[in-house]
């Protein structure tokens, strides 16, 4: 318990110190405070992980009662179990790496201290989200990470694109969060409590299993509705189709932020939430089908768009979208362990890839167009090697991290009988390998395409490169350490007790031969992707890509323009709302509301103008009026 509190206190204190004193007193020393704070969290997370893994340590305790409303009482409680401890490791590790990296990356920025303040807020909120033992704390953390994401995307708010992007992210998340509220309220109403321990109680769930409503002749079970609401929140936060459009735009923020929030930690909050609520989700058949659909769709969507982009960070962003699709798909088929495992490995290699892209960006003077790069291999050896490791890891080549988790998701999907989802997943794995290596070849191999930028390129300082090396090591080894042997690795014994795969129970009864074939197939697809990418972008560059684009022009255009989702939303939502608002403003507001308000002013003015002449300012008029009045009164008094 003490460690959990310390984990929270580290970033909280750092945030308070930097936030209150940063502008005037701390200034360029802000990273020291922030890093000290997150280091405390990191050490505590390690201790907690050690205790949980070796001694089966677990906590579900209340610090104090936070809300009392009627018979609902909400504790400020801490939950430590294998799931939250592994999330703690992910959050604090990546956060620490990004903090250190930012010293080099954000050096000289006028908002240096502000940046670190926001980073501390983010770390704190993410830890609250992960450590809470009830839905309300989850929700508070959920909204707080949303806020810090908003602040950090819009960190360079004087850039219009950044200001727009942070607004977009916030609004899109709000759409998902509406569903989340509904789910949350249903949980409260159903279980009369917000605590996980009450809601995930097998008996309580059994009790409400049959409950439901009939809407338009369709029977909706309560649990389906509840989980669907919660999943809407996950769709917003984890950028799932159709709410994915904010994530690529979020790349307007500083690159360390993209690595920390929009690749490794915050966007995986949805996956964490679904895994946390596995007891509910595994009972909700309809929601599960939808989750699989959304996940597979997102994976496919992200991958196809990723194939065609030229902006290095956007390629990575779409790859994140696609990988999040994988995780969500895994939770849908009931492979919660695989989902969390992929979350874990993905955090390492995607964090690495983003930090590499930041390093490249630094070298290329903030130019992110891969068409202007090329041949950076010699100039930036560390970035080159670490990026290559990240690419191999995400492509799913053993024994690097991505292989273990991705293969497991695909195997579980296949074993669960979701053949279409499996097919999509495998196809996406090939595409992932292709476009990741496309970016690698275009950036680091070949000949420089912009000599000026190339001449000025340089390797990043050690505060940045050191983190790359560290994360590269993790990307190589975490998969093996946790995932070997396949589907029975350490991660399974570790997470198994909290994440029992319910309706995918048959998954384990897959024959050994099938598993091997699937594994070889996924390696084969990845290798094929890499090979094709090599053909396209090294051997026959630029002839082959150009020819391919020409041949499949409409499809390429469709993918390049992100399936026209932004335009579609503009057309369906933004444009009508702007038009109606304009009408209301110029029509209703000016002509009706303002008219009424002005009338309220004008009537007394007109009336006042009428009687103002009575006040002449001359005493004698007043006296005369008084005398007349007196006479009249006296007359009336005596005659009546």
């Amino acid at each position, binding site marked *: 318990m003490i460690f959990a509190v310390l984990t929270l206190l580290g970033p909280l204190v750092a945030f308070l110190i930097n936030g209150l004193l940063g502008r005037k007193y701390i200034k360029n020393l802000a990273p020291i405070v922030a890093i000290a704070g997150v280091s405390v969290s990191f050490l505590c997370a390690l201790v907690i992980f050690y205790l949980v893994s070796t001694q089966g340590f677990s906590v579900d305790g209340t610090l104090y009662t936070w809300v009392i409303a009627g018979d609902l009482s909400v504790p400020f409680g801490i939950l430590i179990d294998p799931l939250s401890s592994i999330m703690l490791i992910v959050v604090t590790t990546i956060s620490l790496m990004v903090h250190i990296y930012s010293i080099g990356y954000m050096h000289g920025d006028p908002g240096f201290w502000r940046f670190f303040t926001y980073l501390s807020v983010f770390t704190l909120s993410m830890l609250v989200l992960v450590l809470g033992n009830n839905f309300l704390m989850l929700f508070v953390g959920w909204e707080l990470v949303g806020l810090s994401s908003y602040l950090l995307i819009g960190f360079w708010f004087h850039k219009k694109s950044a200001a727009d992007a942070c607004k977009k992210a916030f609004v899109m998340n709000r759409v998902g969060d509406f569903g989340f509220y509904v789910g949350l309220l249903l949980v409260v109403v159903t279980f009369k409590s917000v605590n996980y321990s009450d809601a995930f109680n097998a008996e309580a769930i059994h009790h409400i299993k049959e409950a439901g409503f009939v809407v338009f002749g369709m029977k909706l079970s309560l649990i389906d509705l509840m989980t669907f609401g919660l999943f809407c929140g996950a769709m917003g936060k984890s950028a799932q189709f159709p709410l994915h459009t904010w994530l690529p735009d979020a790349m307007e923020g500083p690159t360390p932020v993209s690595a920390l929030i929009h690749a490794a930690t915050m966007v995986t909050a949805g996956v964490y939430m679904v895994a946390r609520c596995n007891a509910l989700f595994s009972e909700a058949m309809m929601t599960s089908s939808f989750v699989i659909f959304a996940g597979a769709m997102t994976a496919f969507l992200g991958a196809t768009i990723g194939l065609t982009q030229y902006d290095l960070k956007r390629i990575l962003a779409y790859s994140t979208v696609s990988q999040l699709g994988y995780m969500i798909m895994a939770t849908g088929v009931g492979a919660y362990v695989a989902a969390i495992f992929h979350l874990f490995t993905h955090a390492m290699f995607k964090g690495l890839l983003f930090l590499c892209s930041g390093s490249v960006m630094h070298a290329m003077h903030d130019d992110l167009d891969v068409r202007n790069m090329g041949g950076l291999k010699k100039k930036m050896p560390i970035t080159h090697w670490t990026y290559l490791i990240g690419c191999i890891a995400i492509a799913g080549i053993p024994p690097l991290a991505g292989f273990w988790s991705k293969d497991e998701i695909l195997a579980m999907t296949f074993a669960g009988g979701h053949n279409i989802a499996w097919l999509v997943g495998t196809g996406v794995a090939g595409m992932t390998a292709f476009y990741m290596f496309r970016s690698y070849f275009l950036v680091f191999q070949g000949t420089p395409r912009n000599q000026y930028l190339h001449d000025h390129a340089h390797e990043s300082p050690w505060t940045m490169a050191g983190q790359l090396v560290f994360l590269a090591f993790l990307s190589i080894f975490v998969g093996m350490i946790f995932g070997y042997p396949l589907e029975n690795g350490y991660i399974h014994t570790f997470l198994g007790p909290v994440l029992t795969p319910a309706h995918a129970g048959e998954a384990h009864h897959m024959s050994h031969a099938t598993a091997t074939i699937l594994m070889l197939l996924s390696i084969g697809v990845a290798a094929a992707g890499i090979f094709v990418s090599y053909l396209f972008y090294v051997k026959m560059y630029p002839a082959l890509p150009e020819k391919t684009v020409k041949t499949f022009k409409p499809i390429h255009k469709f993918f390049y323009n992100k399936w026209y989702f932004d335009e579609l939303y503009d057309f369906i939502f933004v444009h009508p709302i702007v038009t109606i608002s304009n009408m209301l403003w110029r029509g209703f507001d000016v002509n009706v509301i303002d008219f009424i308000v002005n009338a309220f002013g004008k009537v007394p003015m007109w009336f006042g103008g009428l009687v103002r002449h009575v*006040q002449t300012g*001359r005493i004698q008029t007043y006296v005369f009026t008084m005398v007349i009045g007196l006479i009249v009164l006296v007359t009336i008094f005596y005659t009546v």
Partner: protein
Amino acid sequence: MLTLAHYLVLSCIIFAIGMAGVLVRRNLIVMFMSLELMLNAVNINLAAFSNYLQSMTGQIYIVFVMAVAAAEAAVGLALIITMFRNKQTINADEINTMRG
């Protein structure tokens, strides 16, 4: 033999003269003097009734009225002087800053 009626008529006449003065004259000092006249008409009235009813109350009131009149004269004249200093006039018609 003077009866109560004589006093009342006198008082009425003086009061009417005072009121006419206040209403008609434009000189602030004259208006002020007319005002004093009205107060004294009231005093006559009070004295007459005091005598008629054989009660001291009326005469006590006269003392009050005279005190008030004295105070009023002090304040009023001070006001008129200030007014003259500001406006270089004591014509009531020209003092109409509060005109609506």
